[in-house]
């Protein structure tokens, strides 16, 4: 398989966005760069940018590997991407509104009814509810991969609680500290106003019960959650309180947090807790992470929950395969960003094809995430494929399959030189009633192992600073 190299046009010359960087790199002393690379790790450790790995009790907090070579995107390339992203995010919000109200897309027969009805991500509690400001997905992460100069695919949509934005911000801070001269030579678009934009965007969706300046809270499952650092980071940067379920109770029709002066109302809750755990009275009764009764307050306009409960129906992997139809249905336009061709294993023909071609395909769980429970055919052993086949045959509707994409590479700095590694990109999008704001760049995840196509941090992937150059 041949892979698109984002840095090099051929053996010797760099592609346009990388030209200044390449010149700079060639003039550097590899030893000094190696030292910088170690320095970067020390910075991350000191700052405490770590994540906890699930399933490993008392495991050390881990650092996500950081690579010092930026991933660079040209202004025009980015422009093209943003148009596609903007369109997709608008469609997702329109879809969510429709699916919880008139369900016209189902009536029009554009997506099958059973896909919604039998879907755990669909919340009947949200039927007829319009969230404050009409916004369902306040924060969206769209995972994009590249396979050629002009070939981009959306790998998946994250409409629930996309994570990783703290890495986008900290990666940039670290690069600014370590390589100030690079930023003097390259005109890189800023990302640092993200927390401020997030605050404003959430405030613009304040509920009707809010009087005065909206009070924001970030709801975290707690200190042991793998993304706790990010929750604390965002709360801190936005000037919001970082709350857990036990800090909150319902009082006088409002959601209130226990402060040192007593209980005070919260207007907007940026929750990093899944739907199922959000409200033990309305959803999973065993949840200790949520707030009993919060859904009732939500429906009565007493609080904004971001993202809206039930938004997950839009990023379900079975729905994903219908995204081109969804975009066309709500925007009247053809999708600007392509979907990866997807076989729905719930359909007999597709299943037959997938079973026959397991060794070539990537098979994913419909509700899975984080790179768990998936099969990467070309990288799997015969035994792994045989075992996966059994799982697939037992519950076909639980899986979708996609061709193994020839993911583009950007170089990483190994001990002394550059070496290509596969990457993806997660841009972060903020949605408010007035605008859709796309932060230039996003999080580039990189497979640190040679040849590996899995970029998830839970599977050993790393990150890079992502530059979008100014025009």
């Amino acid at each position, binding site marked *: 398989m041949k892979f698109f190299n984002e840095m090099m046009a051929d053996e010797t010359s760099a592609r346009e966005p990388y030209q200044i960087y390449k010149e700079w790199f060639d003039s550097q002393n590899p030893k000094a760069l190696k030292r910088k690379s170690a320095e970067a790790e020390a910075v991350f*450790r*000191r*700052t*405490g940018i770590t994540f906890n790995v699930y399933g490993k009790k008392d495991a050390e907090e881990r650092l996500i590997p950081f690579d010092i070579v930026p991933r660079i995107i040209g202004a025009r390339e980015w422009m093209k991407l943003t148009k596609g992203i903007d369109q997709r995010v608008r469609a997702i919000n329109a879809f969510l509104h429709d699916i919880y109200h008139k369900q016209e897309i189902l009536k029009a027969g554009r997506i099958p009814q059973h896909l919604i009805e039998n879907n755990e991500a669909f919340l009947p509690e949200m039927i007829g509810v319009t969230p404050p400001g009409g916004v369902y997905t306040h924060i969206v992460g769209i995972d994009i991969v590249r396979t050629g100069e002009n070939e981009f695919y959306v790998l998946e949509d994250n409409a629930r609680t996309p994570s990783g934005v703290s890495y986008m911000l900290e990666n940039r801070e670290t690069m600014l500290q370590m390589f100030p001269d690079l930023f003097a030579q390259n005109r890189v678009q800023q990302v640092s106003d993200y927390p401020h934009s997030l605050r404003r965007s959430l405030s613009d969706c304040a509920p009707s019960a809010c009087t005065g300046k909206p009070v924001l809270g970030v709801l975290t499952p707690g*200190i042991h959650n793998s993304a*706790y650092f990010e929750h*604390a980071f965002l*709360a*801190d940067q936005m000037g*919001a*309180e*970082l*709350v*857990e379920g*036990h*800090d909150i*109770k319902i009082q006088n029709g409002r959601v209130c*947090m*226990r*402060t*040192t*002066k*007593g209980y005070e109302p919260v207007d907007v809750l940026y929750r990093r807790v899944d739907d199922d755990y959000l409200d033990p009275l309305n959803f999973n009764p065993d949840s200790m992470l949520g707030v009993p009764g919060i859904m009732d307050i939500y429906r009565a306009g007493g609080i904004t929950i971001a993202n809206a409960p039930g938004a997950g129906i839009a990023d379900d992997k079975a729905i994903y395969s219908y995204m081109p139809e969804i975009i066309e249905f709500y925007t009247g336009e053809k999708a600007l960003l392509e979907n990866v061709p997807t076989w729905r294993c719930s359909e007999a023909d597709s299943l037959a094809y997938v079973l026959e071609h397991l060794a070539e395909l990537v098979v994913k769980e419909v509700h899975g995430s984080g790179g768990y429970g998936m099969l990467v055919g070309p990288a799997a052993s015969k035994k792994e494929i045989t075992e996966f086949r059994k799982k697939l045959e037992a519950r076909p509707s639980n899986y979708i399959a996609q061709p193994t994409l020839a993911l583009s590479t950007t170089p990483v700095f190994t001990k002394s030189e550059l070496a290509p590694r596969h990457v993806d990109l997660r841009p972060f999008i903020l949605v408010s009633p007035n605008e859709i704001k796309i932060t230039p760049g996003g999080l580039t995840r990189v497979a640190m192992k040679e040849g590996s196509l899995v970029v998830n941090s839970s599977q050993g992937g790393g990150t890079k600073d992502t530059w979008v150059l100014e025009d």
Partner: protein
Amino acid sequence: MLGKTANGLFWMFRYLERSENIARLVEAGFRMALTRSQRQGGDWSSVLTTAGLLEQYEAKYSDFENKSVMDFLLRDRTNPSSVLSSMAEARRNARLARTALTREVWEAVNESWLRLSEVLKSPLQDKERIPDILALIRRQSAQVQGAVQGTMLRNDIYDFTRLGTFVERADNTARILDVKYYVLLPSGASVGSSLDNVQWETILRSVSAQQAYRWLHQGEPTASAIAKFLILDTCMPRSLSFCVKEMDLNLRYLNQEYDQVSESSQKVKALQQEMKACTIEDIFESGLHEFIGDFLQRNLAIAGQIETDYRFFA
């Protein structure tokens, strides 16, 4: 501010103070062990008693070897009050209260934890290293306090950090006095008319005050001068009166900011007034041991009242 955050701040600073105090106790004990060949076990056992850890220690070890005691006090994670455990707790609470800390304070405490867990990773074989390690522990704590002084707003957040510090410090100084009070009794059976030099020096060392004491009281140390210094001297930053004065101050700031008079502030005010009114002679007369016991109880009650007043828990 969230009650949970106030709780995190309060305990973060209690644990920071605790790790520093344990380091001071070890320093004093270590010096004694070096300067005296006899009665070594007795010295360490009084250090462990002061830290409230004798029982736990004896459950684990059968003698008082320097190495075992220092391992237990400095790096044993099964001992919840060891320096390493205290730092881990300080950092855990800092993570809970992360949104109330400046980046500098957070990085200082995170770095302290990283440094100390590195340095204390392996058993302390080498005696040469011990003074360095003890100095490092104190320096790390000073770095956090310095970042607090230099970067934190003087608001309720700051008040809770100070309350944690002084509740813990008062407890520590009172415990030292509680264990060693017999040394300071004017006619203790074991000491005769003049004070046991090594004993009183250890007391001063364990609160890092031997130098300050010399400045204030040139000449022979007397029992009542040392007791007065550690209990009633409001210039001495580790004395009971100083700690109570600081608690009073910070609780009054909170009263102002929250526009209320909290119960904890009243409790502290009462204690402070009583201490202001009494002399060291009064204390000796009614019993030093009883006085210290009573102080420890009241300090505990104040900590509990702060927890309630500011809704640390639901």
